[in-house]
């Protein structure tokens, strides 16, 4: 029983981090209709910003916003100087559908190589603000620590803030209108280009939080070659697809589903299925519900 509860708790915490990554993918997809495979790379870079802030200021609560701001800035920069140009150039031609995907992969490679040459391939450490030792109930220790609680609460707060922004503010209305119909948005006087940059920045910030939490939730260390990083790379995408790619709530649900499935597979089946489990879930979802758990009817095919 205690094992079951622990598996559940581990899955939910990990899943909440994947949710953030999925939200980042969804935000970019909604604003530019591009799957940003470089999102994990951007999260990695932001985590290094956070790490630098930790080294110099020694406070996680300063490092987190620093990472977020850094992630937002990097994302805005990429959208402004790179994606606009790319989408204009690759709008037509035989590989127009594939070009943005390949380009974001190229970006991923560049960011990875750059971070690795600046900070080296070795692990660097970020210490969480509170203890990661599990609470105990009687003789049992739960796989749920103050740190995990903190992560969960922060993610919930961020998601709530984000959905408030989207549903209740006029910036949110601009973001949604630009996502659904750029032309009508422009005719309504919305500066769609600026809104796209904003969407990317929000994604960058969200990915930064995912990167920071993924690091402290694991063993506290990370590097461009660590498993944490590869996991962010696939989990964000898979969780976003499970959730239907267009929906923030879907992204959260997708992240949780993914976190729970991985956690249970690891505990009850085999730990070497760590990376193959997400793939299998993805295939199952795409076959059973190609529009995602929460998805518009718009098919994936066209």
């Amino acid at each position: 029983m205690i094992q079951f509860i622990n598996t559940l708790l581990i899955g939910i915490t990990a899943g909440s981090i994947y949710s953030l990554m999925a939200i980042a993918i969804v935000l970019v997809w909604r604003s530019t209709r591009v799957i940003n495979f470089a999102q994990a790379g951007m999260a990695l870079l932001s985590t290094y910003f956070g790490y630098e802030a930790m080294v110099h200021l020694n406070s996680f609560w300063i490092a987190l916003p620093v990472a977020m701001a850094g992630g937002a800035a990097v994302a805005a920069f990429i959208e402004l100087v790179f994606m606009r140009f790319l989408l204009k150039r690759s709008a037509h031609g035989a590989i127009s559908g594939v070009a943005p995907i390949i380009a974001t992969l190229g970006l991923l490679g560049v960011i990875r190589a750059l971070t690795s040459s600046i900070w080296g391939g070795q692990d660097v450490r970020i210490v969480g603000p509170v203890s990661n030792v599990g609470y105990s109930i009687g003789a049992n220790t739960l796989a749920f620590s103050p740190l995990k609680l903190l992560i969960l609460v922060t993610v919930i707060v961020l998601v709530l803030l984000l959905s408030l922004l989207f549903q209740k503010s006029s910036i949110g209305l601009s973001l949604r209108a630009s996502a659904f119909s750029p032309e009508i948005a422009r005719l309504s006087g919305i500066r769609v280009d600026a809104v796209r940059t904003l969407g990317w920045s929000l994604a960058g910030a969200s990915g930064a939080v995912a990167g920071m939490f993924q690091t402290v939730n694991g063993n506290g260390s990370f590097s461009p070659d660590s498993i944490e990083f590869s996991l962010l790379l696939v989990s964000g995408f898979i969780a976003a697809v499970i959730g239907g790619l267009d929906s923030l709530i879907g992204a959260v649900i997708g992240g949780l589903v993914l976190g729970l499935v991985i956690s249970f597979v690891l505990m009850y089946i085999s730990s070497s299925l760590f990376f193959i489990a997400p793939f299998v879930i993805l295939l199952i979802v795409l076959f059973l519900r190609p529009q995602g758990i929460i998805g518009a009817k718009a098919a994936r095919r066209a």
Partner: protein
Amino acid sequence: MHRLKSSNNLIYFFVFGFILFLASNRVDELRVYQGASIAVFVIAIASIILLTGYSGQVSLGHGALLAIGAYSAAVARNEFNVPVVVCFFIAVLSSALGGVLLGAAAARLTGPYLAGVTLALAIGLPSLANQFPILGGEQGLIFDVGFPPLSLGEEFTQYKWFFWISSLAALISMWLLSNILGSRYGRNWRAGRSNEVAAQLAGINTGRSKILAFTISAGVAGLAGALLSMTIGTVSPSAFPLALSFSLLTGAVLSGVTTLSGVMIGAVTLVAIPEIADVIANRIGASERITTNLPGLMVSTLLIITVLFVPHGPVEQHRSRKAKKLVQKKN
């Protein structure tokens, strides 16, 4: 017209291959080894071009298909002592089988979804090696094709043997591929790529056509995988990292995904980049960190530049420029 062109290119390819054969007698071992790598990359890149350029599907996970081929060849060799030539056929068949499954999934998906599925596969599949003891876990398996036959002479080195085998395989697969692309199937793929609905209306079963493309591409990739592990000598998860899939895709984009004829460009570039990076790093006296990351940086930067400025590859770019000039002359 198209057919004529591809057979012309094939002749160039043969001539080029022959020069390489001759050259292999004159250069040092490292170059011979690189030659073998180029041949392997030619095959792997051709399999991606077939998929992406001709049938409009994207695969970020070709590394996984290479791994299937490599592992099945090694298992066949080690467990059942199958002759080497047959091992290569087994590699092709088992990867092709993987391709059928992946293709069945792919026929329902496009663009970003397919990219994501193949990406997840590339990350996930190699880790399966730890699940089944027969695959040898992290250490992997030995894949030994044996010494070159004595009839080739005493001075015929192991690397030269690798080079011969992989070059022969490359020539055969290029010949087969350009024939397939010139056939009805190739036309169906191109039709489906340009406009899926129109192709369906013209009576092409685009779903089946996509699965076929995936199957053939996977089979070719499996051959490349077996050859790759032959040159390395072992098969292990670390031989098929995500970076391999990305490199192959880069090679395909550099070659120009819409035509097979540029395939050498990508293959040579991929093999040359580490060496060029080394020279640059030495010249500028870069630190070790930068030296180790320079090849990756160069590959990715090249990928981005190519997508931005020569999205259809150098060969197609050259052709369309020539065509434009011709039009201008006529006017």
